[in-house]
Every structure is written in C-alpha cells, then in structure tokens.
C-alpha cells in the first residue's frame, strides 16, 4: 500500500474545512512497515490543542476508524508538526494525552478505556456513602429543579438605594459556580450566559486562583 503523507493526513468532516497540513517530508512507507501495517490501517489524524498548560501546542490524534468512518480506537497522540508553536514537540504531559482516553492494561497489555474515566452520570443522595448510576434525563431534570428551588427561594429582585430609589438587581447569592478554564470558549460562553441569566454573582474560574 502506497500512502503519501498528504493522503495520510487528509481529514474528513465538515469542520475540517480550510485545514491544510504541510508536507513533512518523511517516508511513511518505511514507517508503516516498521510499525506493522495494522497499526496504521484506516487511520485518521485529527489536529487538536493540548489541554494542559496554556502554551497552545498542537497535537495530532491518530485514530482507527471502520469503513463507515466510525471511531474504533486511538492509535497514538503526537505533537502536531504543522503547529508553529511547538512544530511537533510535546512535553511529558502532551505525550501522555493518549492516556486521557485509553491505557494499556498493566498485566495483559490489552488496550482499554482508562478505567478512571466515568462513563455514566452518578448520583449521591444526602447522607449516603455511595454513588448510584442514573440516566442523563433524570439527572438534568433534577438539577434544573434544584436550581429553580434555590434561585426562587433566595432571589433578590429589587433593592433600595441610599437615595431612596429602587434598583432592579436580579441576583441570587445562594448558588455559585466555579471552574471552566479547561473548557472551550464556546462552552465558557454559554456557561457565563446561563449563570448570569439565573442571577449568579458568585461566579469564578481558575484565573482567580
């Protein structure tokens, strides 16, 4: 099988529009035979950016997909040679990003989902000493109810100013939100918007700590 670097890195999917990886000039065929042909069968590389420090190094996710393009498993994660910030480099954390999703079993060497990843929503009842698995609908509905209960019972709609006039303040001080610096911008944005619409003023992220 002769694969050029360019074909190798061809990315599918609508969001990849405008994606142009430059030729790296290494001979994949040699790499392919050395790494056994199976390893790179049906591989799709996808560029991402490291989730650790804020340097913004590019990483490429190499994944195996089936004939229908459905994701099967990770093959490896490498520094993105096209990203001008790191030009292919990765520190120990970036190089370990594979483990964020998948690991090799210590004894059998079998590739598996990282067992520390939580795969189902979990619920802990007041006073309980265990987690219970729940479905998404149940969880989201119950959270929405809790939010409404707390908001409505603590809501300050108007306040009196020193000059005697009233001001609409629309806030609750009994709900807080922290974190978000590991989320994408679009996620941070809707989080910020929703929390403020609910009237939250205790709204903080890791920039503060």
């Amino acid at each position, binding site marked *: 099988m002769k694969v050029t670097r360019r074909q190798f890195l061809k990315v599918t999917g609508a969001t990849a529009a405008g994606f142009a990886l430059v030729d790296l000039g290494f001979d994949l065929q040699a790499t392919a035979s050395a790494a056994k042909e199976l390893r790179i069968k049906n591989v799709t590389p996808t560029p991402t950016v490291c989730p650790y420090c804020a340097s913004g190094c590019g990483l490429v996710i190499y994944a195996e997909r089936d004939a229908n393009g459905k994701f099967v498993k990770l093959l490896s994660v490498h520094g993105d040679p096209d990203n*001008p910030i790191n030009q292919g480099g990765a520190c120990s954390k970036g190089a370990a990003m594979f483990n964020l999703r998948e690991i090799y079993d210590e004894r059998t060497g079998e590739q598996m989902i990282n067992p520390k990843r939580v795969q189902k929503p979990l619920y802990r009842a007041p006073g309980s000493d265990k987690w219970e698995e729940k479905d998404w609908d149940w969880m989201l509905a119950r959270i929405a109810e809790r939010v409404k209960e707390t908001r409505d019972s603590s809501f300050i709609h108007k306040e009196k100013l020193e000059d005697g006039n009233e001001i609409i303040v629309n806030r609750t001080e009994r709900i807080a939100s922290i974190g978000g610096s590991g989320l994408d911008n679009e996620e941070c944005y809707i989080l910020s918007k929703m929390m403020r619409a609910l009237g939250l003023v205790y709204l903080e992220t890791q920039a503060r700590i």
Partner: protein
Amino acid sequence: MTNHIVDLKNTDCALIMGSNAAENHPISMRWLLKARENRGAKIIHVDPRFTRTSARSDIYCPMRSGTDIAFLGGMIKYIIDNELYHKDYVVNYTNAAFLVKEEYGFEDGLFTGYDAEKRKYDVSSWDYQVDEAGLPLKDLSLQDPRCVFQLMKKHYERYDIETVCKITGTPKNKYLEVLKTFCATGAPDKTGTIMYAMGITQHTVGSQNVRSFAMVQLLLGNMGRPGGGVNALRGENNVQGATDMALLFHIIPGYIDSPISNAANKDLLSFIRAQTPGAAKLPFTNLEEFRALVKAGFPNSGFKINTSKWVISLLKAWWGKAATLDNDFGYHYLPKRDGNKNYSHIALFEAMHRGEIDGLFVNGTNPVVGGPNANKEQEALTKLKWMVSVDLWLNETADYWTYQGWERTVKNPDVPTYTPADIQTEVFFLPAAAVYEKEGTAAQTGRWVQFRWKGADPVGESKADLWIYNELGKRIKKLYAGSTKPQDEPIVNLDWNYDDEHGHDDIMKVALELCGYNVADGTPVEGFAKLSDDGSTACGCWVYCGAMTYKDGKIIYKTQNRDNKDNSKTGLGLYSNWAWAWPMNRRIVYNRCSVQPDGMTPWPGDEERQLIRWDPTIPADPKKPEALGSWVGDDVPDFLKPTSPDKPAFTGPFIMRPELKGCLFAPKSAMKDGPFPEHYEPWESPTENIMNKQNLNPATKIWEPDKQGTTDKYPIIGTTYRVVEHWQTGALTRNLPWLAELMPDMMVELSEQLAKEKGIKNGHKVVISTTRGDIEAVACVTKRFKPFIVNGKTVHEIGLLWHYGFKGYATGDPANRLTPHIGDANTMIPEYKAWLCDIRRA
C-alpha cells in the same frame, strides 16, 4: 501575553521571574533557546529555588519568596540613576511627563487617602493635574517635581542595592549582574522580555508585582515591540478564554465591569456613563445624544469610547428579540452585585463555610486539592444542599464526602473530620468528554484562539460540556416557561437556540453569537469597529468580534486557519494566518511602539523588528483612493488604518487607557493599593518590613486574623510549585498511568543545611505544619534550595508540589491544606507562594 510564545525568539534578553518556564511551559523555553542561539540573547532566572529553568539560564539569581517589588523597585532606581531608560519612548509613550495633583503623597508606607479602619484608600488624590479642558498637564522635559517621572524617582530612592538585598536575601554581586544585563535592553536597538507565572501573582501584592514589570518594560522601551513585552505564562489551556468570557464575578464578557447595585448603575444609560471613560460629566439624556457625542469624540476616553456598542451588542446576544430600546435592551436582566461585597474564590468559600451558599457548580476544577486552606474549603462543601460536578473523573472535590476524603495522615484536633452520614449534600456527577472527544476553540497564553477538532468519540455516556450546558439551559427555561413574574424574565426571555435541525447542539451557532452577527440577516460582524449600539448587532464578547467571516456563502471560523507560513518579511514568526488572535488578529499588542513617534522611522538599529508604520502615500481603503495615508506592515495595527498624525491615537499606543499612554503612575482607581508599587512583606513573613512601617499590604483584606502563623512556631518559609509530569491538582495527570508512574509521590524540597538542622535525610517521610493543618511528604534534600540571609538572619525556605490528593493512580497529601486564606488587594488571588510553616520527621 502582550506578545506570544514564538516571539520569544526575537528577544535580546529574557528575565524569567516567578516562573519555572522550562518545566511548566517547556515550549516557551525552546523559543528562548533559539534567541540565544541566533541572537546571543541572555536568559536570567530569578527564583527562590534553582530549577530546570535556572539550569538553562545564563544567570541564576536567588530571591526570597514575596520580595519581588523590592527586587524590581531597585531595578527601577538603577535604570533612572544610570539613565538607562529609553528616553524618546518614555517621553512619548508613557505618562512620565504628566503632572500629578499636589495633594498626592507617600509617607511611612502609606499613600495619601488611607482609612485604617476600612483598610481602604480614598484614591481621589492619585490623579493628574488638568487644564481647563480637562486634559492632563505635562512637562516633556521631565524636570517638574510633580511630574510622574520625578515622583517615581523620589519614590524609589529608598530602594538602594544594599537595602534591596537585605530584604530579598540576594547576593549583591548577583543582583548587580541581573541589573546590568537586563537594563541594557533600554538601548533603542535592543528589546528584552519578561516572563512570569503564578510565582508573581499569588501574593498579597500580586497585582503590584505585575505593575512593577510593566514599569520596568515601559522605562526600557520594551512594550509593543518584538522580543519585548510583559508575558504571563498562563497555567490552564483556556484560562485566557474563560477570562475573556467573564467566568469571573467582577466583569461581564469583554472586560466590562459587572454592574453594581448603586445609583451609577441604575439603568443602561447610567451604566454606559459610568463605564465609558471621559463620559461622567457629559451632557446627554438619551442614547441618541450620547451617540452624537461619541461620533464627535471627547477627551480622556481612548478606545473605550465605544463601550456602549459592546454592552448593547452583548445584551442583544443574550436576550435577542426581547432586548429593545424600550427595556434598556434587557440591561435590568443582568444581575447587580452588592458593591460592598467581594465574591471572589476566597470570599465564595468563606460564605459557603458560613452556610450562605446552597448550590454549587464545579466545572473541571478541584478546590479540595487546589483551593487555598483546602481543609477549610473541603469543610465548606459540607454546608451545601447540592453540588454539581462536571469532570472526566471523580476527583477529590466530587468525592469530598467519602470516608477516604476525610482521612488525615497527621491527627490534628483543630482540623474537623466528617463521615458520609454527616454530610447532607446531594451530589450530581456529570461525566464530561475529554478535550479531543469534542470540538471547540481555546485561547492560548499569547491570545491565539485555536480550533480543536474532534479526534475520538466520548467514552461511554460522557458528553461535551457544551451539550451538558445547552441541555441544562433548555430544561431550566422549560421550568420557567409561561411565568409572568418580572424576576423570571431574564430566563424566560433568554435567547437560547443552539440546536441544529436535528436537535443537536451546534457549536458554530454558539461561535457566531459569541463573535457577533448582524441581527437583520445573521451574517457575521467582521470586526468590533462595526458593532453598533442601536440593537442592529449582537455580539457575546466584543474582543472576539472579527474571528468569523462570510465567504462564498459560507461562514468561516478563522480559528480553523492552518496556514503555517510566517507572513512577516523579516522572519519575526507572526504566523498571522495560523488560527486567529484577539483582538483583530493582532499578534503583538501596543505594536505602535515598534516605530518612532513620527510613525515612519524605525528605532535606530532596529529596522527588522518594526511591526507597522505610517505610509502617507497610499490609501487605507482602496475604494477611497483619494484619501491618502495608511498604517501598513506585517502585524495588524492597534487602531484604524487611516489614523493620521492629527489624531490623538497616532501617538497614543496604549489605546485602552484614557490618556493613551503607558502608566508608570497608575491614576485614580486603577489600583486599590497605590499608584506606585511598594514593598510589603507577605502576610506570614519571617521578618519585619525594613522598607517602610507597614508589614502587610495596607489595602488587603484579612479574612482569618487568628490563623496568622508567627516565627516562634513557624520559622520556615513555605512555597508551592509544579513539575512537568503533573498539572495543577493532578486530576488530568494522576489519573494517567504513564504520568503517575513518572512522578508517583508527594515531595517537599529542602536545603542540606535545614535538613541537617532537623535531622532529615533524603527520602525520609516528613510532616509539614501551619496554623491551617499538617501534611506528610517525602523529603528531597537538595542543593537547589539555599538558606537566605534576610536582614542579617538566616532564613530557610522549603518548596512543596501541590499536585496531590487522595484520588487517582498517584496519591499524596494536598499541599494546600497548609496555605492561607488571604489574597491580593486588587484581585484577591490567594497568597499561595509565601507563608510560614515548620517541618519535622514523621
């Protein structure tokens, strides 16, 4: 960063202070090493400990934790005394020449206007003298005793080398070597960069530490030029973006103050008046009149004259059709906070501990390991009625209620423990998808907003945070649907339409709203200069406006740009066609400074690092060929292209400031603790302040007076830091077998001298204690720490990793069980980096 990571290669000298760049931002070091290889750049590392960064530096200079202002104040004095400042730059681009009010003064560590009871300043005397038109008076010769330059000179007279080194514990010869080497970048043909991280900000004087950097860089003429700048190496992959989106109590998206419950914020017009510099006393009674004033321009406003456009476009993005001129565009829907209250992280946990908070959302963060005074913050969580944790794993915060969560290696009757039965919090854990199992953008430390494509499916039922919050938003809206209560309008009227035709969340819809669209046809707004305040544009965060464009009937998200050819003609590594940088794809902010005041001449000997220039012979807009004169160059200028020599912005590089100049003196309310940085000791310090009569920053809030450790019980300075194999609270690394194996144990580093004194050997288990708690760690006895001689006395400092907790493959005690609840006077960032402790064998 005012500059960006790749730009580090353009420097002549790097001062790294409060950062271990080689370990925590390894790629930044690569570009510095290139600068050394290709330009002979010098690298200086100032740090309490000899680190991997020190090992790669030309000069390593030790400094006691918490004494940065003494160190940098001495540098300011050295620059002035030896006339090493870049004179043309200082006169034209900074406020050095501005005259300050006669009432302003400084004595015994206090600036004028101090109220000891409230621990607050009345800042009215910290201001410029003005003429009849309200414009600041200046003395361009810098000789007037009331000009900023002379006041600054006087302020730092006390910071002589002798005194500075007594405070910092730095050997004098090393200090001098640093001064000589870095201050040489004041030459017009040289630039120097300053790189910092949390070692600078996590102090009761953190903001003034950064201010000191800005002052040094302004004096040396290093701002707005390649190889220069004040460069924060930020710690979380999208902490920049989270800040831009205002996941912080004090701002709304785009760095606009969040409204306060007071008369100045009572309606939209009042808010705009308060938020627009120079507008306070202008005669207008409605938006239309204000618009006319903006169009004509008014003094002391700067680029923020456009604030109304950003605010109203934001309101339009949030409340869509319900935001109209008649209801102040929904301004009243915004929550208004109590102006006398602080809502920052420490305050939030103090309130929670008092039982004042019922519900908490925890979004990929872990205060049980990462919060200051973590024992107290964990106890605060027990007071919650409900908590929602969104994460990849059950981190220590999600599992705070478990038996394991309350195990303590050292028993201490002052630290309460609980059992699950004691804790009535209802906890919801929502499994989130990992970074490459979803798509979206992140703003890295140099403001490049890069798209991350989806390379794998989420594991199990885990979901992207976007899906989670979109779904939760829809459910909350449903619960409120039909309500006619005025207080529910912010939710009922919230514009929340992010689903595609199949009912799936569509990230491009969110991105379009955040970057801005024209209300009439939904096309992207091509830049924030095109935003309006009449409700015709909607934009969720104006600094991101311009990241989207419309081409051949398709919306292009420029964050997806992947052309990695360097567009700069002189090889500066701008990479302007790779991703997109805010604002307006500008790679180096304040870039007006890279050319002389005439706008046309490069700094002598520095032709290659000129980013932009004024060309009077060509038109700015090809459609208007008769209007000659345009800014040209490889970077995007900080102002509109046709800004001609008759406009104030032509010689005003710092466009976000009302005076358009870099502030050596921070006027009015810019800072809460003084217009000039002044040295104060950390809250817990091994010594008295010999620079002035105040030990602690007089303007910072003391939360727990009874928890202040003193040298009789706790004589050793403690500090915290990270290693390359782990990240932050370790949730994203201690759960990874490869990384857990590389760095499996919690450790504390201490000097050979202290180890000998305490009978501790390398590898021993030791206990470290403060007034907040105790932890156990493995001792690493090392030459990397050396005792300091402070005011003639020997003082020891030890360093702890703060990555560990009780979950994951690698476990250990959290260092933050030791750190205090006290923070910076301006930001309330906790003082993690300098506190008092003791150490003994376990």
